[in-house]
């Protein structure tokens, strides 16, 4: 009898845990295992705010905004899109930077977007939001990449600091093709690391992937109020583009 009860309760707990995933997808289980192994995670849409368009009709430039600053002392934040051929979007250290990011990504089809945020107790919080898209409307996708002056603009950066009362917002953009290498004849060519430094210390190392849209734009929020920053964009071809703000 006890055994039966135990069996039933385990069954109920396991199904209710499973049911907590707000957006089911066939790849979520494998992906999260690949990224965090056997570490503990909980679904936490309450503390992780994710914003995406109601409908993303330009699938190569889909704006996303993630704000997990409700999770105190977050150590690390990882974003991935379940159904993208390149699921991983960003992996950032968030001790001196807030777990906040705004950027544009590419989506191959309708997909959930996840934000994994590691708290100070070693538990990952998972935020989820579905991105609806099939490409279309009046847009013909990806016109921007056909710039013949490509070499002239490569690595050109633009940025600005916006002071807020308890933090600084950094807006930065760089001209880069962010080539996935998935199209026949094209080699992978994308920014894979961004570092942000203030006068004397490293604030964050941010790993990026080619799932981020071409000519990427970012908003980061740092927990200090320095007057200047140095941002380096490194790509997989060994280029190091430096920008001083």
């Amino acid at each position, binding site marked *: 009898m006890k055994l039966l009860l135990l069996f039933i309760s385990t069954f109920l707990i396991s199904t209710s845990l499973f049911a907590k995933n707000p957006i089911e997808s066939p790849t979520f289980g494998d992906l999260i295992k690949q990224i965090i192994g056997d570490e503990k995670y909980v679904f936490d849409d309450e503390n992780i705010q994710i*914003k995406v*368009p*109601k*409908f993303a*009709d*330009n699938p190569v*430039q889909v*704006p996303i*905004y993630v704000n997990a600053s409700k999770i105190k002392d977050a150590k690390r934040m990882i974003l991935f899109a379940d159904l993208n051929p390149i699921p991983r979007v960003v992996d950032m250290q968030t001790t001196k930077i807030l777990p906040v990011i*705004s950027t*544009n990504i590419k989506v191959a089809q309708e997909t959930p977007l996840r934000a994994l945020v590691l708290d100070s107790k070693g538990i990952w919080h998972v935020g989820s939001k579905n991105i609806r898209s*099939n*490409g*279309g*409307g*009046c*847009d*013909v996708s990806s016109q921007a990449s056909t710039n013949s002056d490509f070499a002239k603009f490569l690595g050109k950066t*633009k940025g*600005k600091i*916006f002071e807020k009362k308890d933090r600084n*917002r950094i*807006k930065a*953009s760089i001209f880069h093709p962010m080539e996935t290498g998935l199209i026949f004849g094209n080699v992978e060519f994308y920014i894979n690391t961004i570092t942000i430094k203030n006068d004397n210390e490293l604030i964050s190392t941010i790993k990026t992937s080619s799932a981020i849209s071409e*000519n990427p*734009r970012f*908003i980061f929020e740092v927990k200090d109020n320095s007057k200047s920053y140095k941002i380096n964009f490194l790509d997989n071809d060994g280029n190091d583009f430096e920008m001083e703000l």
Partner: protein
Amino acid sequence: MKILLLIITAFIFSFANDFDYKIKAIKLNENSYYVYGKEEYFSKENGGDIANTAFIITKNSVILIDTGSSVAYAKQLKEQIRKITNKPIKFIFNTHHHPDHFLGNYAFKDAKIFATDYTKEDIKNNGELYISNMVNLIGKAAYTTKVKVPNSLLEEKELILDRYKLKILYLNGHTKSDVVIYDEKTKIVYASDLIFNKRALATPHANLQDWIKALEKLKTIDFKILVAGHGKVSYDKKVIDENIFYLKYLHSTLKNAVNEGLDTFEILEKEHPKELQDYSMFKEEFERSIINLYPKYENQ
């Protein structure tokens, strides 16, 4: 055996049936009509019937302005015109290159289809892509659609078609090349997508400053009736000012957002003027506009 054949044909026909657009021509005056497109986004339910089309019956022929989102729509439009007149549809205008305005062209094989050089080129280069997008968006209703590139270059400022005179204004802003057709005789102006009447403006290929300039020019025309590209017809110039207000608001919102360092979604969460929020499709269209246009403003 005959019955079986009958059943089989009936069965096949029931599947081959085109999407029913329930097209209704609305009379503007004795010889001028327009067909009102729903103020919605493309969907399987509306078959892409979201833009207005219009036609003028002249002494010997029919002039059609835009052909809708699909060949199925255009065929049914033709049937509707047939109920009013037997005169041949000889002349067609494609006012700009957006798929809800030209994808019906293929239904008019013998007509002279006018468009500007830019519009012609875009239809030639991207037509197939527009169709595959349309299949995604409206499904079945787009299956019979094929591209037909305009076959007559629109250049003159005044056209005489079977002795019927029309004035052509070459403007831009909604796209890189928009055409406005003015019928002096009836004082009807066909403003195409430079005007959205109480319907949020669509801006995927827009240049806001050019669009405002085009609308200022449109205001100088002495018209009695204005046929918008989307939304109902209008009988005064107020509609032009409303569109200018919308565009200026969009422009200043984007400019201020750059100065304040806002994120796309922070712009969308702001309080927007009440009168604009009352426009049909405001939420969807305003979001699309901000998403499409903000990077350009950020890079300036």
